[in-house]
């Protein structure tokens, strides 16, 4: 039996110190969360601050009580186990290393506490130090290390106990851009080597997409979508997920369905300009319907020639290296197009665009729920 980690109808409400009146209004930090994480996979819990991601992580680790529901590791209910008996390794954003100790002693600390024989400690510390590329630092004091090095030591310390599950809480958010990019690659590599079930909590969608096999997107304590990065990116469940994932972010525009001589149906944008409705939506739309239309900047192509879905005047051109970007102002918002060839555009140019119909999404304006073609 594989030891999948299963969260079953998990609820969490924080204690209000006995103030009964407030308890009623206290929102759920986590509300009816169900997740099954297969052994050996890399799962990311992703969401903005206050979405309940860290609370969930802390409940898995046993650092936070569970208001309702249970957590299983394989067949075993671990909900009421003491943190130290759960066999879980933890690495937080702030490294919480022991500054007076050497890197070696920091990594060895919990093994010593468990009275593991000295020889085995030495073997395991050196083994994990090699994996985390901190071998040369073993004799250094922690206080002199860079942020990236500290985080490596921190993860090494979590892994030295050979945990069944590794929990990472925003491990990269303290680091500067370059270091973050490097360590991101290392964490990916590490997971490939040790194949330990890993849960990464982050607010950085790029981190989640680049590292995880599966992503759980949360908002205000409620799971929004659970799927592979590809599913989350290319098949978002609602407008929140669509807008949260992707850099540059997805264009989300309020549109109204109108009948049109040349397009049959068109979406009328806020400034009156028209965008052809892909045929696949004909059965779910009616003239006058209002939607939020979602389209990624990279799903729009600027074309020459007769066939096009919309025509706009350029308000903004940005050279960004391999990528270039064109912006079109539609009332208060900006429709953003990103491409990576050598073309240049100038303010005032008229462009014609085509939209990839498979990657054009419609959402209910009120609920944000996805409207799918039938």
């Amino acid at each position, binding site marked *: 039996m594989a030891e999948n980690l299963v969260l079953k109808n998990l609820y969490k409400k924080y204690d209000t110190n006995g103030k009964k009146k407030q308890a009623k209004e206290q929102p759920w930090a986590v509300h009816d969360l169900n997740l099954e994480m297969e052994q050996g996979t890399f799962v990311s819990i992703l969401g903005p601050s206050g979405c309940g991601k860290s609370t969930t992580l802390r409940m898995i680790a046993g650092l936070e009580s569970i208001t309702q529901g249970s957590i299983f590791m394989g067949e075993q209910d671990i909900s009421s186990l003491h943190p130290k008996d759960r066999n879980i390794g933890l690495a937080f954003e702030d490294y919480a290393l022991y500054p007076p100790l050497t890197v070696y002693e920091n990594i060895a600390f919990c093994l010593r506490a468990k009275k593991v024989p000295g020889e085995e400690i030495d073997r395991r510390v050196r083994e994990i130090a090699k994996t985390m590329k901190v071998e040369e630092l073993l004799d250094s004091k922690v206080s002199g290390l860079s942020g990236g090095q500290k985080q490596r030591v921190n993860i090494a310390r979590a892994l030295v106990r050979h945990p069944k599950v590794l929990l990472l809480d925003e491990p990269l958010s303290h680091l500067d851009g370059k270091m973050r990019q490097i360590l991101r690659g*290392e964490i990916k590599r590490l997971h490939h080597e040790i194949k330990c079930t890993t849960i990464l909590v982050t607010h950085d969608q790029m981190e989640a997409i680049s590292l995880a096999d599966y992503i759980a997107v949360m908002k205000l304590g409620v799971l929004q979508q659970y799927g592979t990065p590809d599913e989350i990116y290319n098949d978002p469940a609602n407008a929140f997920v669509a807008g949260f*994932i*992707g850099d540059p972010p997805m264009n989300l525009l309020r549109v109204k369905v109108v009948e049109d001589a040349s397009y049959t149906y068109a979406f009328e944008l806020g400034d009156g300009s028209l965008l052809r409705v892909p045929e696949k939506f004909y059965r779910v739309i009616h003239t006058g319907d209002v939607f939020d239309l979602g389209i990624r900047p990279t799903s729009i192509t600027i074309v020459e020639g007769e066939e096009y879905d919309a025509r706009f005047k350029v308000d903004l051109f940005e*050279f*960004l*290296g391999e990528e270039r970007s064109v912006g079109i102002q539609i009332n208060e918002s900006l429709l953003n197009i990103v491409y990576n060839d050598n073309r240049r555009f100038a303010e005032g140019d008229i462009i014609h665009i085509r939209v990839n119909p498979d990657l054009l999404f419609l959402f209910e304006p009120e609920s944000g729920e996805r409207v799918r073609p039938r």
Partner: protein
Amino acid sequence: MAKITLEHITKTFGKKTALKDVSLCVEDGEFLVLFGPAGAGKTTLLNMIAGIDDPDSGNIWFDDTPMNFVEPSNRDVAMVFENYALYPQMPVYDNIASPLRSRKHRTDEAGIRKEVERVAAITGMSEYLERRPSQLSNGQRQRVALCRALVRNPNVFLLDEPIAHLDAKLRNAMRKELKLMQKNLDCTSIYVTHDFTEAMSLGDRIAVIRDGEILQVGTNEEVYYRPAWEFVARLFGECEINMIPARIEKRNGRLWAVTRWEGVEFPVPVDVERSLGDVAEVDLGCRTPALAFSREPAAGYVRGSVYSVEPLGNKTELIVDVQGDLIRFIIPVDTKFGIDETVYIGLNPEHIIFFDQKTEAFLACHGEETGTEV
């Protein structure tokens, strides 16, 4: 408006030299970006121009007027900082109007209204004039800070990392807004940032600074396609440029670049040949277009193995281990690789930027991408 001329500016703080013989000219009405890593001297230079700090030696001119001993308040310079320091108790209107009510710039109320409305229109804040700062988003607060700086119609507009602290999504949106505002902006501006995307998007020209020295001044395409130093090349691009060492050898009257990877060698493009002089050791600066990959062995390709794969939504970053060198580049999102999979790497000489290995200075690149015209 004014043309700013800096001549041989030097500044030391104790033993540390913050600025070394900096000479720079910002044209009348130009938007210049001062770009470099933390501690490069960007803010120090800005403070000199504002008059907050004095140079040890060197001259500062606004048009034909020497500014060295002019008080900050008499320089007609407006500054915007990262923290916007608004008056929380005042509505937006009064926050923007506050400089015009100071003793120095006192204006009658009708004049104030006209000015406030003018700058609010530039920044798209016209509808928020009655609100208090607490009722605004971070992006809107920053716009109020911009308005307040602009309202005096300054000679010179200095912006010190004004959007650095915003989250990625908001920063992206604010950058585009600043870019849209630029065309209505009628003053000489210097913008300090360490974000290469902001630098490339906003700057008419970019001055790259390191350790108190200006390394290069040029348009976004110049610094991207013809970086004066390896250091500059490394700063631009979200996937750091690869530097591959090579020897230059003469064969049958042609110059060849020979890397330390067996079989990876090529005749140097003819127009590059002329600029190489007698440099024998070069670094081949290779961004994504300069690299080719194949799943099958091919002539001129070297065998590597996939070190890490990081999907980024609409593209994927691949890190390949080639005989111990980690090579990073972007591949299309629908090209799938697994970790440790074999991949063969080749080079596209016409996209390579050649640097002198010893001095790290720019030598040459093939003519197509000089950044002047495509």
